[in-house]
């Protein structure tokens, strides 16, 4: 498997006469895990879309040194797989079929599903733990099952970079825990992960680096551990946080102070 590297330099994006992102730069190393946090409307989803080449950005985004702008959709899809924020459209397909559809960028235009495709899809279903849902229609799944199925489809895409936009929204606690564990495992297997989340603890828990944006600007960037040693979090979200350190554990748990009184 090729190991990729994502470099974002001076990324800006405007829409509707408004600058939504301005001059954001960061890079993620092979197999790295960067989480983007920030308040509502900060531009997190927009950042992800620009970095993935889904929106026409200004600035530079490179994967393995090659500009995303110069890659066509298929080429991009071979490097970057997505779990979108609102993956809630009507998708009248079974889980297996939907995952198989992700093989599209690898297939010659006229070809159908190959034996190799089928193996990869089966592997992806197994990794995401949705083998027993394979023949269920996406329309009948619960929120958590659905999110896992969508992740399986992203894995089937066979990329080395994974973009996740709020992968735990709509999930209950157990499913949140399971989903994050799954993402960590995938990351540990060598997949580079760029995740957007509004739950700071998911970021603290799993990711190596954190990028905070606010009103389209990068306001903090660094190792996850560093974030805890500053008052950055409170500034980013404009609300006080309390940290609970648990003996013998790597990182503390963050909670908005408003709920701890």
């Amino acid at each position: 498997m090729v190991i990729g590297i994502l470099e974002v330099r001076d990324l800006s994006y405007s829409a509707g006469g408004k600058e939504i992102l301005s001059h954001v730069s960061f890079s993620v190393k092979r197999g790295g895990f960067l989480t983007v946090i920030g308040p509502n409307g900060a531009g997190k989803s927009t950042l992800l879309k620009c970095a993935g080449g889904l929106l026409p950005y200004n600035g530079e985004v490179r994967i393995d040194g090659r500009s995303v702008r110069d890659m066509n959709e298929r080429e991009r899809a071979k490097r970057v797989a997505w779990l979108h924020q609102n993956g809630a459209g009507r998708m009248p397909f079974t889980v297996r079929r939907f995952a198989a559809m992700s093989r599209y960028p690898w297939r010659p235009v006229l070809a159908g599903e190959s034996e190799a495709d089928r193996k990869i899809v089966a592997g992806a279903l197994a990794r995401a733990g949705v083998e027993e849902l394979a023949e269920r229609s996406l329309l009948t799944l619960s929120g958590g099952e659905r999110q896992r199925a969508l992740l399986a489809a992203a894995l089937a895409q066979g990329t080395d970079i994974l973009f996740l936009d709020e992968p735990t929204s709509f999930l209950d606690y157990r499913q949140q825990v399971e989903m994050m564990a799954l993402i960590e495992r995938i990351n540990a297997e060598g997949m580079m992960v760029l995740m957007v989340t509004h739950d700071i603890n998911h970021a603290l828990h799993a990711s190596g680096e954190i990028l905070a944006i606010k009103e389209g600007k990068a306001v903090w960037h660094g190792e996850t551990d560093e974030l805890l040693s500053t008052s950055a979090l409170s500034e980013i979200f404009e609300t006080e946080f309390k940290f609970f350190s648990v003996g013998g554990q790597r990182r503390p748990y963050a909670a908005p102070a408003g709920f701890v009184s």
Partner: protein
Amino acid sequence: MNKKIVLLFIISGLIIIAAPFVGAHMLSPSDILGEGGSARILWDLRLPRVTLGWISGATLAVCGLIFQALFRNPLASPDMLGVSMGAAFGAVLYIRLGIAISVFGVIQGISLAAFGGAFLAIMALYAAGNIRRGGLSLSSLLLAGVALNFLFGSVNMIIQYSGGYTDTFRMMRWTMGGLQTVGFAPALASLPGLLIILLVGWLTGPQLDLFICGEELAQSRGVSVAALRRLLFLTVSFVVGISVALCGPIGFVGLMCPHICRHISGGGHRELTVVCALFGGAFLVACDVASRTFWAPAELPVGIITSCLGSLFFLYLLVNGER
């Protein structure tokens, strides 16, 4: 599901094989090799007509399927969005102005004009979608299509009204649509359209599957959404233009056949392309047999039969269907 396709394939095949022999005057298989009246009916009238019918039905159904996916609206069809009316406009204008062109002797000027009209309609829709800064939403584009449909329809009527005695007869006959034909020329002329749209449907099927799940999802899976939309927009209008040019606007097939097929097969757009072609073709041929047999020797416009039978069948599916 594949079983259903095989079954459909067989039924479609049987209808094509049987259709040429059925009519007010029944033919027998021996007429295939025979000489004389019956053989001439078979070779000069029935076979060309069945061929044209199958090709047109398949073409319209697949075009409807693609448009419904493209606009993510069950009511979107080339008929609804002004393409057919545009084609009719081209034809009516051609008749009215008395222009005369003919290319390669095979394709008649009127067909070219109809095609031009369809193209005009789709370009107008395209322009409406692009003139406005930021583009139109899909639902606005749909409404624009419906408005264009009305516009072309009314202009056609105005042209007809301003026509003289015989003109009107010709235009009315043209705007009703029909498959009466002598010889294989129209069938041959419409074949490329079917081949193009089948190829396009087959090629872009996986892309359409992704597309109906959401534009961004499709894009992130490697689909060039803008290019796909342009490609489909243009090929569908091109092909519908050809079909309408040759048989007039045959209502209903493009709108309802895809829904019926979705009830039959579900699944992805590659399969659906095949299913729509098989079903649409067989459906139009069967309706045409009815139209020329039921009240023989009088003949009903085939659009009446397709609307009547098709909507009954569709209502049945809707009320008794699985989902």
